[in-house]
C-alpha cells in the first residue's frame, strides 16, 4: 500500500506537467500545415524562406527569421500564378538570384522557378516578404 502511494506521489509532477502542457497548448512548437505556399530566395550566403498558411481565420507566416507571424494583410493577395509563370519563363539578362515559389495549398505541389531580378517575381516576393514581417525594423 505504501509503495503504491509512493508511486502515485512520484507520478504527480508528471501529471501536473501533462495537464499544464495540455492547457497551455500554444506553447508547443508551431507547425506549418502541409497545405501552404512557400517563397524561397537563394541568396549568396543564406536562403531566405517564407511559408504562408491559413491559421484558423487568420493568415500566418513562418520564416527563417520568425517561427510565427500573424499577417495583417493577406500575404498572397498579389498572387497571379499564370502571370508569374509566364514572366519566369522569359529569359532574363544579367544576374539571377534564384527564387522558388511552391503552391502546396491544394494537395499537389505546383512550382515556379525564376529570378528575383525579374520585375514581376521581384514585386511579388517583396509584397509577400513585407506582409510576413520581413524588413519591418
Amino acid at each position: 500500500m505504501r509503495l503504491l502511494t509512493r508511486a502515485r506521489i512520484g507520478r504527480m509532477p508528471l501529471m501536473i506537467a501533462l495537464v499544464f502542457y495540455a492547457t497551455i497548448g500554444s506553447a508547443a512548437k508551431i507547425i506549418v500545415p502541409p497545405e501552404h505556399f512557400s517563397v524561397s530566395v537563394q541568396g549568396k550566403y543564406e536562403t531566405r524562406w517564407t511559408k504562408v498558411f491559413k491559421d484558423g481565420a487568420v493568415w500566418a507566416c513562418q520564416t527563417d527569421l520568425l517561427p510565427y507571424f500573424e499577417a495583417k494583410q493577406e500575404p498572397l493577395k498579389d498572387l497571379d500564378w499564370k502571370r508569374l509563370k509566364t514572366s519566369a519563363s522569359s529569359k532574363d539578362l544579367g544576374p539571377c538570384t534564384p527564387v522558388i515559389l511552391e503552391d502546396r495549398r491544394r494537395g499537389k505541389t505546383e512550382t515556379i522557378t525564376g529570378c528575383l531580378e525579374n520585375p514581376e517575381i521581384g514585386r511579388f516576393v517583396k509584397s509577400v516578404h513585407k506582409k510576413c514581417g520581413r524588413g519591418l525594423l
Partner: protein
Amino acid sequence: MRFALLLILIVFWTFPTLAEDPGNAELQALIDSMSRLEGPQAPKHCDPEGKKVSQPDCSRLTDDICEKLWDPKHDGVLELQTGKIDVGSKGKSGIKSTVRADVQALLDAEKRLPSDLRSKAEPIMNRFRELLKNEIDSKKWHRDFGNLLSDWGSIIEEVAQDRAKASLPKDEKSASSFERKARLGQKKIEVSDQITRAKYANGPNWKRVEQTYTAAKADILAVIDDLKLPAAIREKMKKKLNSVELSLPLLDPRIIDSGEECATTEVNAFYDPIYNRMTVCAGFFNSYPDAAFYTVLIHELGHSIDPGIFADLAFEESRMAQIARKLSNFEKPPFNCREWDKLQQDLFEMPSRIVEPKHPYRKLIDCFSSRKKELEPFNAEKLRYAAKKQTSSLIARYSDLNAFGYLAKSGTKDEPNDFYMRPDRRVARSHNYIPPSWKKSDDIVTESFVQSLSCAKAKDGASFERASREDRNKMFQDAILSAQSAQEALLVEKFRHCGRECRELLKEELSRDRNENFADWISIQAFPRYLSRETSLEKRRELAGLASSLFCTEPGYIKTSNADHDFDVIEKTFSQLPHPEYRVRRLSVFSPKVAELVNCRMDDELKKGFGSCDF
C-alpha cells in the same frame, strides 16, 4: 618500421626548419608516407615557439568549424577565442539571432533617433523591452512581437507622411500625383536611413566592419603591387580600388539602395558597380567575426576590379557608352533631331567584323575553370545574334508591362499622365520615386524610344502630338523599332569590349563568368597578410576556419560525408549561377602560404579549390 619512424621524428624535432623548407619536400613526403603506414595520426611539427604541434589536414580546419557550428550542441552559435558566430535561433522564442540583434540595436539607439520619431517610438520601445525580457515560444508571444513589428512599420510611415506634408509648398494643389508620391517616397527613405544610422553608425559591430575594411583595403592594394602584371594595369586596378567607398546599408538610391532586409537582418555584403560603393548587411555584421568580414570585404573589393568590371571599363570609355549615359535618366530628350538621325545612321550600324579582345587576366581565368567548357566562336555573326535575341527579350519585357504605351500617352486634361515622355520617372518609380544618382549604360530602350518619338514627323510634317491617328500609330511602332536597333547596337559594342568576360554572353555560351572566382582568389591572396598579424598558431588556425565560416552549409541541406562524393562540386560546373560551390570556396582559402602559416597539410581535398591559381 617503428624504429625508422622514430629516427625520422628525432631528425625532424632536432632540425625543425628542414620540414618547413620547400627544398625538403621529399623528406616531408617520406614523413607523410610513414605516418600513413603507422596509422591516421599526422606527423608532429614544431611551431615557432618550439612547442610540439600536430599537423592537421587543412580541409579539417574548415570542415571542423562547420560541423561544430551546426552540431546539436552549438546549433548555429559558436564562440571561439578569436570570434563568435551567432546565426542560430537559440533564444526561448526561437526567433533568429539576427532579428534579436537588430531589435536590440534599435532599443540601444532610442536616444539617437530623430525627435519626431522618438516621441512616437517610446511606447513601442518599452513594449519591445518587456517582450524580450519575457521571451517564450508561444503563439501569443509571437503575435505580440509581430504586432510590435507592424506598429513600428506604421510609425515610420506616419512620421514620413507628417514630414512630407510639412514640406509641401503652399501651392500644394499644383503638385502632380507623381510629385506627391515622390515627396512621400523620399521622406520614407529619409526616416528609414536615419534609423539605420542611429542604430549602427556608431555601433560596435559596424565599427568592426570599418576597421576591418581599412585593413582589407591596405592589404588588397599591397597584393596588387605584388602581382605579375604590367605596371599600367596594376595602376589602373589600384586607382579603381582606391575610389571604392564603404557605406552603411542604406536605402537611398542616390547612395546605394541596399534593400530593407539588408538594413536589418539579411546576411549579405555586396559591391555595386553603378555606385562604386560596397556595403555589409546588418545580418552579417551582427552575427559573424572579423575574420569572416575580412575575406568578404576583400572579395567585394575584388569585384571592383574583377574581369567583367575591368572589361567594362574599356566599354565605359567608348563613344557608345557616353551616348548611353547621356540618354539615361533624361527629363527632356538630350539630342536634337539632326544629331539623333546621324547617330542612328552612323553609330547604330552593326559592325561587320569583330576581333576578340585580349584580357590581361586570361591565364588566371582559365585556371578557375575546372570543367573546360567549349565556348562558341567569338565573331560578329554570333555577337549580332546574341544582341538581337537579348534585345527582343528586353523589348518583350517592356511591352508586357505596356511601358511604351505608358510613355506615349499624354493622358487627359483632368488626368495628365505623369510618365508621358518621361523614362526617368519610370526608373524613379522603382526606387521609391527618388531619381537615382547613377547613369546606366546597358539599356537604352525606353530612352531611345522617347527620343525617336519626339523626333518623329508625319508625311505632312506634323509632330507626334499633332499627327493623325494613323500616322501616330505608325510613329509609335517605328519608335519601338528604332529603340530596338539602338539597343542591339549598344549591346554589340558592349560585347566587343568585354569579350569572353561579358556576363551577358554567359547564356549564349560565348563567355565564362569567373568574376566570383576572381573575387575569391584575390581574397585568398590577401588573407596571409591578415593571418600573419596573429602570432599564436592556435588562433591562426581558428581564424583560417572562421574566415570562410559564411560558407558552412546551412541546416536542412542534405548532409552526407564529404568522402562519399563530390556531387555539389560537379553539379556546380553545370550551373549558370556565378558563385563557386560553398565547400570549394572554403577549401580555396588554403593557399600554400596560408597552409604554411597555420601549419596544416595540403591534403587532396584542397585540389577542389583554386587557391593555387596564378596570373
